[in-house]
């Protein structure tokens, strides 16, 4: 499975990517919504996009709106990963079409829990040592 990690902070991209990679995702990164959209338009497909809100060029809310307005990328699960934590911000994001919302700071377990909610975890992994 493939995930697109969109955040203008390289640090945060690495943190999110590390957990996703451990869960079996291949990762592509983009540093803002415009760059992320360009990746989609180039034909790359993704199962998941983790999207920051506040970014230059195009913010995460706009990116989510763009993805959900067209019919082209219906299979992408969109999760916002952001420090915006006011109730109405979460409502706005869900209204724009985000499927899930993870507030920073988050632990790797929290990200994993969200993926389980979304049905994106691999069926079985690990085993008895």
């Amino acid at each position, binding site marked *: 499975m493939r995930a697109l990690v969109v955040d*203008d902070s*390289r640090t*945060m991209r690495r*943190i999110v990517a*590390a957990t996703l990679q451990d869960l079996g995702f291949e990762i592509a990164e983009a540093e803002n919504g415009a760059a992320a959209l360009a990746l989609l338009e180039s034909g790359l497909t993704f199962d998941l996009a983790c999207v920051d809100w506040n970014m230059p060029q195009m913010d995460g809310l706009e990116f989510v709106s763009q993805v959900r307005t067209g019919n082209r990328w219906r299979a992408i699960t969109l999760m916002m990963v*952001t420090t*915006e934590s006011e109730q109405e911000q979460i409502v706005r994001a869900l209204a724009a079409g985000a499927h899930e919302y993870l507030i*920073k700071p988050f632990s790797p377990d929290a990200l994993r829990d969200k993926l389980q909610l979304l049905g994106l975890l691999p069926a079985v992994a690990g085993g008895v040592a």
Partner: protein
Amino acid sequence: MDAPVAEGEVLAIAAQIFAALVDGEEGRLVPWPAPQPEPEHDVAAWVDVAGPWAGRASLETSSDAAADLARALLGLAPGAPVPDDEVADALGELANVLGGNVKALLPHYGALGLPRVAGALPGDDEGRAVRRVPLAWHGHSLVLTVWERSPLAGAADGGEVR
């Protein structure tokens, strides 16, 4: 009305940021032991908040501490080389998460600016420090400050740095 955010709230936010992203557990970020003088800080990261309340959330520390923070966030071994721009990015992101959580405590929505990192705070546009929280992290000094540039309508004038 005094500062829009309580000291306990800033502490709680910081503790959760460090527990989740930096240390993997709580308890590594503690109040700075008061009588001990704080060392010089040579790096600062901050984000501005714009809205009915205008202010800034900042983080000041030493460059050694900043490098250790970056290593902890990035999962690098202690002492591993970490480029300056990555340290700056890491510190900026900490300020971003701090600022975002502080602003959520305000009664009115505030827009978060993008984080900035420099050797020191600019010093001419912060406004008034309404919360100053000196902390210790693995022996390093780390000071979190909430600055107020324009208080909420009806807030009392004056007030001290705590």
